[in-house]
């Protein structure tokens, strides 16, 4: 029983940043933009949040900086892929390279080559729910985790039941129709990027300001790419993306436990396990993937 409780607690810790990033990516992709800048955006957000928190001594300022970084990088993505109409793959990978490089370079400049990574004196505290019950160890999480959980139904509702969501989906499905209907396609896409960027920034902040209270080079470690896969297999729906992230988090937590318990399997196999199983299950669950019809397509009004 303790094993299970601990496992579930760890699941939520692992799944939070992936869920946030995947939700952000979902919004952006529903508007027709594949943002491969996600990995670098998370890293630079984690870094800027950490630096600002450390220099100012305020976690809240750090959090704001992380959000702002996420937003700015996604707006930059918009500049390249929406306004200038560049290839989205190239623009996104470029942003990941640029943002990661910038994070590592600045880190070197600020902290030199110190072997022990600098850490915050104080990081975000955990918030325990269901105090005194058996569930307490599961729900002793950082505030951001609860926010992420709340965001799942909120974003689902936003997409399907608000005019913002309708417009966002329309530019991802048929931007020409949206244009003819009198919408500003670029502006709607930028709005999606701004909200999505904030979520990616929050994912970065979770890593450096809550979970670790420090910054290291490899702290994002492919979570952005995992998020992108989860969005695809989650059929671009916040609820399914939630299940996908939860599944991955669970398998990852399980794998770590098994490693710790010294299971007689090569640890490489254990490492690969969550990825393989998640992909298999999600592929089976979401086989009739209905991707946004205008994904990857820059919109240009013809003959203009």
């Amino acid at each position: 029983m303790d094993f299970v409780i601990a496992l579930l607690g760890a699941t939520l810790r692992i799944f939070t940043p992936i869920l946030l990033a995947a939700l952000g990516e979902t919004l952006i992709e529903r508007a027709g933009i594949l943002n491969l800048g996600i990995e670098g955006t998370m890293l630079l957000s984690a870094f800027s949040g950490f630096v600002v928190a450390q220099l100012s001594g305020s976690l809240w300022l750090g959090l704001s900086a992380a959000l702002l970084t996420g937003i700015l990088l996604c707006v930059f993505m918009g500049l390249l892929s929406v306004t200038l109409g560049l290839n989205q793959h190239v623009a996104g990978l470029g942003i990941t390279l640029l943002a990661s490089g910038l994070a590592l370079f600045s880190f070197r400049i600020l902290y030199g080559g110190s072997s022990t990574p600098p850490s915050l004196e104080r990081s975000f505290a955990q918030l325990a729910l269901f105090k005194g019950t058996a569930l307490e160890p599961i729900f002793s999480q950082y505030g951001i985790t609860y926010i992420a959980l709340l965001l799942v139904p909120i974003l689902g509702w936003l997409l399907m039941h608000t005019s913002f969501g309708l417009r966002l989906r329309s530019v991802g499905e048929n931007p020409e129709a949206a244009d003819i209907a009198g919408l500003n396609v670029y502006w709607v896409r930028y709005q999606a990027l701004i909200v999505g960027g904030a979520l990616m920034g929050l994912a970065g902040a979770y890593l450096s300001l809550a979970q670790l209270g420090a910054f290291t080079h490899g702290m994002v470690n492919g979570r952005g790419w995992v998020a992108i896969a989860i969005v695809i297999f989650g059929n671009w729906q916040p609820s399914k993306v939630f299940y996908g992230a939860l599944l991955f988090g669970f398998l990852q937590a399980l794998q770590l436990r098994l490693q710790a318990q010294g299971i007689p399997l090569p640890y490489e196999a254990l490492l690969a396990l969550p990825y393989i199983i998640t992909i298999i299950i999600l592929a089976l669950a979401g086989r009739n993937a209905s991707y946004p019809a205008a994904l990857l397509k820059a919109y240009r009004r013809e003959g203009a």
Partner: protein
Amino acid sequence: MPIPFLSIKNLSKRFGSLSANEAISLELYPAEVLALLGENGAGKTTLTKMLYGIYQPDEGELILAGSPVRFRSPADAIRHGIGFVSQHFSLVPSFTVAENVVLGREGSALLNKKVLNDKVRQTAEHFGLALDPTSLIRDLSVGEQQRVEILKSLYRNCQLLILDEPTAVLTPQDVDKLFETLRNLQNQGLSVIIITHKLEEAIAISQRVAVLRLGKLVGVEQTQNTNAKALAKLMVGRDSVPVTRNEQHHQEKTTVLAAKGLTVKDKRGLTTLDNVTLELHAGEVLGIAGVAGNGQTELVDILTGMLKPEKGQVLLAGKTLDLGNTRAFEVAGVGRIPEDRLKGVIADLSVAENLTLEHIPQFSKTGHLNAKAIRQEAENLITTFQIKAKPNDKTRTLSGGNIQKIILARTLSKNPSAVIAAQPTRGLDIGATNFVHEQLLAQKERGAGVLLLSEDLDEVLRLSDRILVIYGGKIVGEFMAAEAELETLGLLMAGSKDVAA
């Protein structure tokens, strides 16, 4: 004289060196229907796109209710009461009717689906448009989708509604319905601009007719003072002669293409093609008459190798073809003129590339393309088929008629033994239509079998030697064209069973 709703003053638009619209001046009055005529590439679409803020004019101005306006985007045009239904629909297929209609005009941040559905339903009823706000666009017929497009503009309170070739994709029944709607709108004080290639339609619906030729406005007439012949002359700048069919029939009946027991079920398990058997003879045009959606698309797709039926076979000159294998059909000698022109070409490739696309092996040695030979061949075909384009033009920028000519040139230059022509003249002007007809008849003279599918009964009657009627996925009648009666055909096409075929 009433005050014009919109005055167009000296409007010009150039694409590179091409003058698509040249100093066009025209007045539009409230409660009037103006028909805009012109051959393919005359500049009709260009003009209307400027009125809706999609294109920016290079010169000239628009005056709305007395004051000059500039439309930098469709949003601007909508704000000033302009509505536009484009040649190719712009709807979101995965959205409902209501969602498409209210998009950008939701009225509040929260979508109350019930309220919006009711509002859309009310607007639809007010203008007499039969639509269910909750159905998905992708489940609707072409006629219904067009009604959604019109409703979209009306929901935005347009005062001027522009329709670019709305009847090209409609069945005769739907055209009647559309015209009823337009008269209704006119009675409510709206102005309408309608583009069409069918002169009878223009005469039936409009009060005035404006004719464009090569980008210039060559005439504006009161409809009651003109007639189809005069308008046709104005459009092409000379008298036009329709093609005449060579009446002598080939006596010997060699079957080039045979289909046996073709049966297709759609995704929902409904039978769309039910045990269809037919034989196409050498040297004949076999017409298939039928209202859209009665299995023609499936039939064409099977006969060109794009669709594999549940049951049945297709034989060319007695040899069974590998069903669902486009390449095999093509190699065997089946020529395809597809229904959807834009799917028949790759819009972003050049004219030369599209012309030679299907005979790549002929132009390549060891995988390397011979650019000179391709250009040579393209130039030949451009001359033979009178395509108004240069080999290096992007196909996307060509007018509908010229795109169709590219497809004809590519297909017919290979001398196929069977030609499958689906709606070959949809959206084409008189000149281009005649050209296509001539080419199809030339194929027949050459000894090929031509299968002609068309919703235009006149066309079927004019070209065919033999006619099959398709209804509900079945062949319900066969006639020799010379003996076919329009009324009988019409009844069979509508599914009437009281006709002795």
